[in-house]
C-alpha cells in the first residue's frame, strides 16, 4: 500500500536531470494501447518522469540502471537498461485497481470505498466484441449479468439482459442510464462501442438511487470525454464476416417423401405405405434423374449465403486545454443479412460531440450532443416468416425450376424470392438525437458545496415504409407441361403501401446540491436533488391498396377508392418527478457508510398512489486497513460490505386506474356495408394500482491476496412484493371477466405478486508476468434462483402443477418416458384415446390409469439460466496481445417443437430417427400431420421437446499486434494496431438443431425454432492514431 502512495508522490515530484547520463526513451503499452501517466523511475534514485499521451517517455539514465514502471492500474514492472536503444514496455493490468474511480448513480466513487455490488466494463473491452450491438458485449465478462442473444438479424440482434436472473412475474427490463439520463431514448444497444468510456452495472441496493425504476438493476453508461493535451486522432476500421452459429439439418427429398407416405398411412392405415409416392418416385428424388419433377432441394443452401459482410468505421478526435476539453466522433456500421440476393441491410451513422468547458473557476458547463441514424431495410417478409418458409419448405419442391422460373415454394412462399426486394421492401429508418446540457457551480463561502444539474432532450423519429409489390412464382403442371403463374405479394395483384411514423421524446431536468468534504479523517459526500421527466409518444399510420403501378411507391399514388385508404393515429404521454438524496461517509476509508433515498412520483398511478419511497443503506469495513491486520501479509486488501434497500418497478401499462374503453371498428351494418364505429371495454379499473417493490440484501467480500489474486464473493437475496401482475387463472370465465387471446388482458395489473430470489456471485482473478509475457485469467460464476411466493393461480390447481413455490418461467409438460413400440406397450401403459405404435408414452403421473391434463408436471428450469459463468483470459507478449471471453450457462431448458408434418419439413434429427413401421426402434416419435396438433406434440406438450440448453461458448477472442513505434514515427503515426477477433467462435452444447440461446423468453411452448439464427462473426481490424 505504501508503495502505491509513494508512487503518487513520485508522480508529483519535479524532476531533475543528471547531466552525465544519457537519454533513454521508450514507450509503455498495455493490451496494445499506449498507457499515459505511467511513473518511470530510475531505481534507488529520485529521478523519474511520466509517460505522455502516446505512452512515450524520455529520461536520463545509464546502462545498468534499472527502471521501475509504476501505475495504479498496472502491475509494477522493472527493466534493466542494456543500451541506449528505445525501450518497449508492456504492462499488465491489475485486476484490483484500488484507486480506480467507478461511475455510480448520480456520481462517482472510488472503487476502494464502494459498498455496493457494482461491476464495471471498460469501453476498451467492449470494442473487443466484433458484434456492434453493445448488449452483446456483456455475456461472460462478470458475474451477476445474464445476457441471452435471441436473434442474429441485423438491426434486431440484441441480447436480453437480466441482472441476477428473473425476479418478478412482471417486467424484468433493466434501467439504462446514459450520461446521467435515466431511460435515455435510444438505449444502449446502438451506441457506438468506440464512444463508450465505461459501463457500470448496479446489481444491488446501490441502484436504489434510481428508486422506482431500479428494481431490475441499472446499467450506467458513460461516454468518452476529452482530456487535456494535444489532439489525438483515432481511426479504426473493422471488416467482419458473419455466418449462422448453427442451422438445423433438414430431411432430404427421399426421406421426406417416405415420411409423407407414412403420414398418409397413419391417416388411413388401410391404404398401405405408398399412398403418396411410389417407391419408384422416391428413387427419382434420391437419384436426381428428373430434377424438374423430382427435385431434392436444400432450402437453406438455396436461400442463405455462407457469410455476410459487416464493416465498421470509427473516427474520433479528442483533446483539450485546461478550460475546454472535447471528444468528437463519427462512426458508421454496415451489416448485411445472410440471404442470397437479400434485401436485408442495417446501416448506422452516428456522431457525438462531448464538450466540457470551465466558464469560470467555479462554473463548469458541459454540452453533450449525439445523434444517430439507424437505417433498417428488410424484405417484405419478416425474418421469422422467412425462416419459417425455409424450415417448412419441402425438399421435394424445387426452389427454382431448371428453366429459371421460381417455384411457389411452400404455399406460395418461396424463401428464395422472399428474401429479395422483388416483393418490395420494408424501410425502417430511425433517427435518435440526445442532447444534454450540464452545469455545475461551486458555491463560494462553504468549501465543498456545489450545485449542479442537467437538462436533457431526447428525441427519436422512426418511420416505416412498407411497399408490397406483386411478383410471380410458378407451379409446374406435369400433365399439361405448363408453368402456371401465381402472383404473390402486394394485394390482389396490385401493389400496396403501409406507412408508419412514431415520434418519441423524453425531456429530463435535474438539479442537485452537493456537499463533499474531508474533515480530518472523516470524509463526507452528500447531495439532495430533484428530477423530473416527461415522455411523449405519438404515432401515425396510413395505408393504400391498389396502386396503379408498382413503380410509384407513394401514398398519394395509390388506389383512389375509399376502401383503398386507411389511417390511424395514437399518442400518449407520462411524467415522473423525483426527490433524491444520498449521504456517504467514511473514516480513513476504513469504515464506510452510505444512505440513499428517493421519493418517486409517476403519472402511471392514480392520485394518492403516485408516490413511492425507496431508501437504502450500505456499509463497508476494510479490514486490511486495520493496524492489527497488517501482520497478515499475504492478504493485500480485504473488505466486507453489505447493502439493504427498497427499490421499485413501475413498468406497466398506463392508465389502469379507470375502466378503459377503446374504439375498435369492425362491425358492418347497412345495405352499403359500412363499418359502424364500435367501442370495446379493454381494461378494467384497478383504482389502487401502485409500485412494485423489491427489497434487496447484498453481502460481499472483496480481497486481493498473494499479490496476484483477487476475489469477490457475494450473497444476495431479493424479496419482490406488490408485483404488478394480472389475475387470470383464479377468475372464472363465467364472471364475464375474460382476457382475450394474445393481446393486452382485460384485467388490470394488480399489486399481488410475490417472488423471492437469492443466489451467489463469485469471481476469482489471477494475473502475473513471466518474462515478457503478461497474462491474466479470471473466472466468474453466478447462481440466481427465484421462487414464486404468490402468483395468481386457479383455486383448484393441482399442487404439483402450481407455479407457487417454484422458479419463474417453468414449463408445464407431460413427461415423455418412451415410445410405444409393441402392442404390449400399448396394453401395459395408460395411453391417450387413439394412441398408436410410434407415439410417445406419457407418464401416468397421478396413477389414475389414464392420461389427462392432471399428468403434466412442472419442469425444473425455465429458459433463463439459473447458473451462468464466464472465463476471461488475456495475455500480451511484446507487441502481441491476446484476450478471450468464454460464456456459459446451465440449469436451463428450452422448448422447441418444430413445425413439421405435411405442414413442413423435419429436422434431420427427427426424420432420421423417427419411429416408423420400418424403423420400430426409432428414438423419435412417428411423423404426424402437424406437430402442433399432434398427440406427440402441441396437443400434449411434453418433455421430449424440451432441451437442456446448457452451453459453453467462446463469446469473444481477440489477437492483436502493435506495429513497432519506430517505423510509425517516421510516417507521423503515433500508434498502429492490427487485430483479428471473433464472436461466438465455437459452442459446446447438447442442443442439436438450433442455437442454445435461441427461442422466445418465457415458458411458452409455442416456439418452433423459426428465428433468424445467432451469428458467428470473424473480424479483422486496424486502429491508427495520429
Amino acid at each position: 500500500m505504501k508503495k502505491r502512495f509513494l508512487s503518487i508522490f513520485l508522480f508529483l515530484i519535479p524532476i531533475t536531470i543528471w547531466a552525465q547520463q544519457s537519454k533513454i526513451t521508450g514507450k509503455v503499452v498495455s493490451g496494445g494501447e499506449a498507457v499515459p501517466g505511467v511513473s518511470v523511475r530510475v531505481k534507488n534514485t529520485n529521478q523519474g518522469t511520466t509517460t505522455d499521451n502516446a505512452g512515450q517517455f524520455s529520461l536520463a539514465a545509464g546502462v545498468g540502471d534499472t527502471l521501475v514502471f509504476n501505475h495504479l492500474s498496472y502491475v509494477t514492472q522493472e527493466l534493466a537498461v542494456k543500451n541506449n536503444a528505445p525501450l518497449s514496455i508492456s504492462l499488465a493490468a491489475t485486476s484490483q485497481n484500488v484507486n480506480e474511480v467507478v461511475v455510480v448513480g448520480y456520481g462517482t466513487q472510488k472503487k476502494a470505498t464502494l459498498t455496493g455490488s457494482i461491476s464495471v466494463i471498460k469501453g476498451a473491452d467492449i470494442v473487443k466484441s466484433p458484434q456492434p450491438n453493445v448488449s452483446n458485449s456483456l455475456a461472460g465478462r462478470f458475474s451477476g449479468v445474464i445476457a441471452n442473444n435471441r436473434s442474429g438479424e441485423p438491426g434486431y440482434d440484441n441480447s436480453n439482459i437480466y441482472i441476477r436472473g428473473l425476479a418478478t412475474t412482471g417486467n424484468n427490463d433493466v434501467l439504462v442510464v446514459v450520461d446521467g439520463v435515466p431511460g435515455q431514448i435510444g438505449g444502449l444497444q446502438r451506441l457506438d462501442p468506440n464512444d463508450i468510456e465505461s459501463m457500470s452495472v448496479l446489481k444491488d441496493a446501490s441502484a436504489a438511487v434510481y428508486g422506482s425504476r431500479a428494481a431490475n438493476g441499472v446499467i450506467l453508461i458513460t461516454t468518452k470525454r476529452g482530456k487535456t493535451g494535444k489532439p489525438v486522432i483515432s481511426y479504426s476500421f473493422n471488416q467482419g464476416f458473419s455466418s449462422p452459429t448453427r442451422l438445423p439439418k433438414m430431411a432430404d427429398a427421399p426421406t421426406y417423401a417416405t415420411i409423407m407416405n407414412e403420414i398418409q398411412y397413419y391417416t388411413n392405415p388401410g391404404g398401405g405405405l405408398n399412398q403418396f409416392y411410389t417407391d419408384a418416385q422416391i428413387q427419382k428424388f434420391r437419384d436426381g434423374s428428373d430434377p424438374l419433377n423430382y427435385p431434392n432441394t436444400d432450402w437453406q443452401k438455396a436461400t442463405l449465403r455462407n457469410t455476410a459482410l459487416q464493416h465498421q468505421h470509427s473516427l474520433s478526435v479528442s483533446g483539450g486545454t485546461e478550460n475546454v476539453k472535447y471528444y468528437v466522433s463519427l462512426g458508421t456500421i454496415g451489416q448485411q443479412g445472410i440471404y442470397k440476393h437479400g434485401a436485408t441491410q442495417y446501416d448506422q451513422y452516428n456522431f457525438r460531440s462531448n464538450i466540457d468547458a470551465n466558464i469560470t473557476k467555479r462554473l463548469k458547463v458541459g454540452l453533450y450532443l449525439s445523434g444517430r441514424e439507424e437505417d433498417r431495410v428488410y424484405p417484405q417478409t419478416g425474418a421469422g416468416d422467412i425462416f419459417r418458409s425455409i424450415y417448412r419448405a419441402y425438399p421435394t419442391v424445387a426452389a427454382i425450376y431448371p428453366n429459371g422460373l421460381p417455384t411457389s415454394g411452400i404455399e406460395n412462399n418461396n424463401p428464395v424470392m422472399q428474401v429479395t426486394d422483388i416483393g418490395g421492401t420494408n424501410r425502417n429508418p430511425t433517427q435518435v438525437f440526445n442532447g444534454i446540457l450540464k452545469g455545475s457551480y461551486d458555491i463560494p463561502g462553504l468549501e465543498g458545496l456545489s450545485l449542479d444539474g442537467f437538462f436533457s432532450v431526447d428525441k427519436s423519429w422512426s418511420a416505416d415504409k412498407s411497399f408490397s409489390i406483386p411478383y410471380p412464382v410458378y407451379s409446374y403442371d406435369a400433365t399439361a407441361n405448363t408453368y402456371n403463374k401465381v402472383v404473390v405479394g402486394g394485394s390482389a395483384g396490385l401493389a400496396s403501401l403501409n406507412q408508419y411514423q412514431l415520434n418519441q421524446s423524453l425531456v429530463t431536468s435535474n438539479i442537485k446540491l452537493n456537499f463533499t468534504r474531508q474533515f480530518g479523517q472523516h470524509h463526507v459526500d452528500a447531495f439532495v436533488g430533484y428530477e423530473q421527466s416527461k415522455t411523449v409518444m405519438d404515432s401515425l399510420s396510413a395505408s393504400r391498396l391498389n396502386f396503379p403501378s408498382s413503380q410509384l411507391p407513394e401514398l398519394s399514388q395509390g388506389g383512389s377508392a375509399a376502401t383503398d385508404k386507411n389511417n390511424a393515429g395514437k399518442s400518449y404521454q407520462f411524467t415522473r418527478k423525483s426527490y433524491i438524496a444520498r449521504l456517504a461517509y467514511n473514516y480513513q476509508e476504513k469504515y464506510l457508510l452510505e444512505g440513499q433515498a428517493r421519493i418517486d412520483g409517476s403519472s402511471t398511478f392514480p392520485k394518492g398512489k403516485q408516490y413511492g419511497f425507496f431508501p437504502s443503506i450500505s456499509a463497508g469495513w476494510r479490514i486490511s486497513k486495520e493496524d492489527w491486520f497488517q501482520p497478515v501479509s499475504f492478504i493485500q486488501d480485504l473488505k466486507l460490505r453489505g447493502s439493504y434497500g427498497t427499490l421499485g418497478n413501475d413498468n406497466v401499462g398506463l392508465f389502469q386506474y379507470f375502466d378503459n374503453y377503446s374504439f375498435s371498428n369492425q362491425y358492418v351494418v347497412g345495405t352499403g356495408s359500412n363499418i359502424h364505429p364500435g367501442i370495446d371495454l379493454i381494461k378494467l379499473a384497478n383504482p389502487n394500482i401502485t409500485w412494485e417493490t423489491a427489497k434487496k440484501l447484498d453481502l460481499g467480500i472483496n480481497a486481493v491476496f498473494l499479490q496476484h489474486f483477487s476475489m469477490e464473493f457475494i450473497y444476495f437475496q431479493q424479496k419482490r412484493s406488490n408485483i404488478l401482475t394480472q389475475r387470470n387463472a383464479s377468475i372464472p370465465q363465467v364472471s364475464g371477466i375474460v382476457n382475450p387471446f394474445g393481446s393486452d388482458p382485460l384485467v388490470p395489473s394488480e399489486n399481488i405478486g410475490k417472488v423471492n430470489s437469492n443466489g451467489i456471485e463469485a469471481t476469482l482473478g489471477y494475473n502475473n508476468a513471466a518474462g515478457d509475457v503478461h497474462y491474466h485469467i479470471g473466472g466468474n460464476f453466478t447462481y440466481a434462483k427465484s421462487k414464486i411466493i404468490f402468483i395468481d393461480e386457479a383455486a383448484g390447481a393441482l399442487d404439483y402443477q402450481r407455479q407457487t413455490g417454484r422458479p419463474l418461467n417453468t414449463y408445464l409438460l407431460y413427461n415423455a418416458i418412451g415410445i410405444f413400440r409393441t402392442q404390449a406397450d400399448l396394453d401395459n401403459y395408460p395411453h391417450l384415446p387413439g394412441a398408436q405404435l410410434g407415439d410417445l408414452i406419457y407418464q401416468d403421473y397421478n396413477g389414475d390409469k389414464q392420461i389427462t391434463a392432471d399428468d403434466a408436471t412442472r419442469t425444473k428450469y425455465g429458459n433463463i439460466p439459473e447458473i451462468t459463468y464466464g472465463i476471461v483470459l488475456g495475455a500480451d507478449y511484446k507487441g502481441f496481445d491476446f484476450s478471450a471471453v468464454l460464456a456459459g450457462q446451465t440449469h436451463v431448458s428450452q422448448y422447441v417443437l418444430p413445425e413439421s408434418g405435411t405442414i413442413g419439413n423435419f429436422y434431420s434429427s427427427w426424420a432420421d430417427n423417427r419411429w416408423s413401421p420400418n424403423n420400430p426402434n426409432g428414438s423419435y416419435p412417428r411423423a404426424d400431420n402437424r406437430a402442433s396438433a399432434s398427440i406427440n406434440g402441441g396437443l400434449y406438450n411434453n418433455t421430449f421437446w424440451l432441451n437442456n440448453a446448457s452451453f459453453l461458448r467462446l463469446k469473444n477472442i481477440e489477437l492483436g499486434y502493435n506495429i513497432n513505434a519506430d517505423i510509425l514515427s517516421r510516417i507521423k503515426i503515433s500508434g498502429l494496431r492490427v487485430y483479428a477477433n471473433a464472436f461466438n467462435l465455437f459452442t459446446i452444447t447438447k442442443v442439436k438443431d438450433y442455437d442454445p440461446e435461441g427461442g422466445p423468453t418465457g415458458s411458452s411452448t409455442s416456439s418452433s425454432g423459426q428465428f433468424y439464427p445467432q451469428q458467428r462473426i470473424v473480424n479483422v481490424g486496424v486502429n491508427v492514431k495520429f
Partner: protein
Amino acid sequence: MKTKNILSIGLIAIAGILVSCKKNYLDITPTDRVPDVAVLADSALFEDFVINRYMSVKLQDKEGEGTNPGFGRGFEYAMWSALTDESIYNNDDNTWLVQRGQLAPENTGIAGTIWGRSYRSIRECNYALNQIDSVAMSVGHRTQLRGELHFIRAFRYQDLIRNYGGVVLMGDKVYNLEDNLGDDALFTRATIKQSIDYAVSELDSAIAQLPLANDDSWQLGRATKGAALALKSRLLLYAASPLYNAGTWANAAAAAKAVMDLGKYSLDASYSGLFLNANSNEIIFERQYAIGARHVCLEISNGPNGYNGWAGNTPLQNLVDAYQMSNGKDITDPTSGYNAQNPYVNRDARFYATILYNGATYRNSTVQIYTPGGKDSKDGPSNWNTTKTGYYLRKYMDDRNPIDNPWNVAGLQPWIYFRYAEVLLNYAEAQNEAVGPDGTVYNAINLIRKRVNQPDLPAGLSQTQMRDAIRKERQVELAFEEHRFYDVRRWKIADVTENVPAYGIDVTTSGGSYVYTRKVALSGRAFATKHYWLPIPRTEIQASNNRITQNTGY
C-alpha cells in the same frame, strides 16, 4: 469576472426554471382511450359500445382471423363443420381430436372458446342494460337498444345452452374485480329447462322492443323482431328435442309459425347466390363484412390445390351420399338411377352448389381429383394442399374473388345466422312431431325443395318417414351452416352418425374412364355418449375449485 458571475447566476436561474415543479406535473389526461363516464355521457358512444356486442373477443389462435368472432364460429380457417360428418379440416388445427373422440376438458380443440366468449359478452350486455337508463337519449332509441341487448344476451345463452346444456344464469349481475369471484352463484348451473326459459324470456323482451325491419335508422346487420323470433324458434325446437326434453313441439311449431306469419321473409330464388348476397330477402339475421373488416379468404383457404387453394374444409362422402338424385330418390334406393361409378350426375342441385367433385367445372376449368395426373390431386402442385376426401367446398365461394393473393380484398361473404329456410324446416319438424305430417308440413318442406327443383315429397308419408325426410332435408339444405353438429345431438343420433367412419373417395383413371373407390379419409372417427355435450374447459373447473359441475363423462 463580474460578467461571468452574472452568467453563472443566470444559468442557475435557468436551471431552476427548467425544473420548476409544476404542481400538477403528474396529472396526465389519456388521449388514446375513453373512460366509462364518456361512454355513458354520450348516446352515440354508448351505441358504439352496444354495436360491438354483436362481436366478442378472440380467445384462441386461428379464431377471429380478420375480425373478432361473432356468435358461433362462422367463417374461420377451420369451420365448425369440421367437427361433424360434413367435412374434415385438411390441416387438422385441433379439429381431428373432436372427430376422433379425444375431446376432453383440457383438449377442447376449436370448441373451447364458446364458454368464455359468451359469458364475457353477457357481462357486457348486463353492464349496458344496467346503465342504459342513465344515458340521455330518446325513449324510442333506448327501447331499441335495450331490445338489441336482450337479443344479444339471449343469443349468447343459446350458444352456451346448445353446447353445454344447463348453464349458469347471470341475471343482470355484473361481476367486478372487487367482488367475491368465488361466489356460489357463479358456479351453480341451472337446468336445461331453466336455461331455455330464461333465454326465451329474454327474447320475448327483445321481440317487444325491436323494430320489425331494417331501414334507414335501423341498419342491416342489427337485430330485428324477426331475428329474435327466429332465435326463439330455434331454441324452442331444441327444447322440444329428445336430448333436451325441456319443451313441447307445439310451442316450437308456434314459434316458427310466428316468423312465417310476419310475412317479411321469403326464399331466395337462387340457392347458390343466396350465400353471397347480404341483401337477400331470405336472410333474417346475419353478420356482414367489408373491406377493412373481413373474415378469412375462403377461396384460397378452401380451394383445390390445382387452383392454388389450400383445401381447408373438405366435404366428406358421408355428406355427399345424403344428396338425393334430382328425381327425389335417395341414392340408396335401387330405383334412383344412382351409379356409383358415375356418381355425380343427376343429383340434387344443392349438391352442385355445395361441393366440388371430380369433373366439376370451377372457374372455367375442370376439377381433376383423379390420379394419376389430376391437377387437384396429390399429383398436382403443392400436393400437401390436396384433398383427403376427394371433394372441395363450393358453397360460399365467390368467384369474383381472386384465389391468388386475395389478402385485403376477399373475405366479404355474409355469415348467415338465421335464414327463412331454417324457420321452414323448424316448423316442419316441430309440426310433424306435434300433430303429424299435415299439409303445412308438406308445404314448408316442398317450398324449400321447389327452389332447387327437387320434386315434392311423396304424399302419404308416415310421421316417422316425414321425420327422416325432414332430417335429410336439413342435412343438405343447411350444410356447413353450423346446424349438423347440434341437430345430430339433439336428435340423439350422433352415437350413430358420428361413429360412421369419415369416408372419402379415391378417383383413379385409366384409359379415360374413372374408377371411384370409397376410402376412409380420416381414421379413428369416434363418438361417445359424453360427447353429446362439450366439456367445460379444465381451466374453468379449476378456477371454480371444482365447484362447477362438469358435464357427465368428462
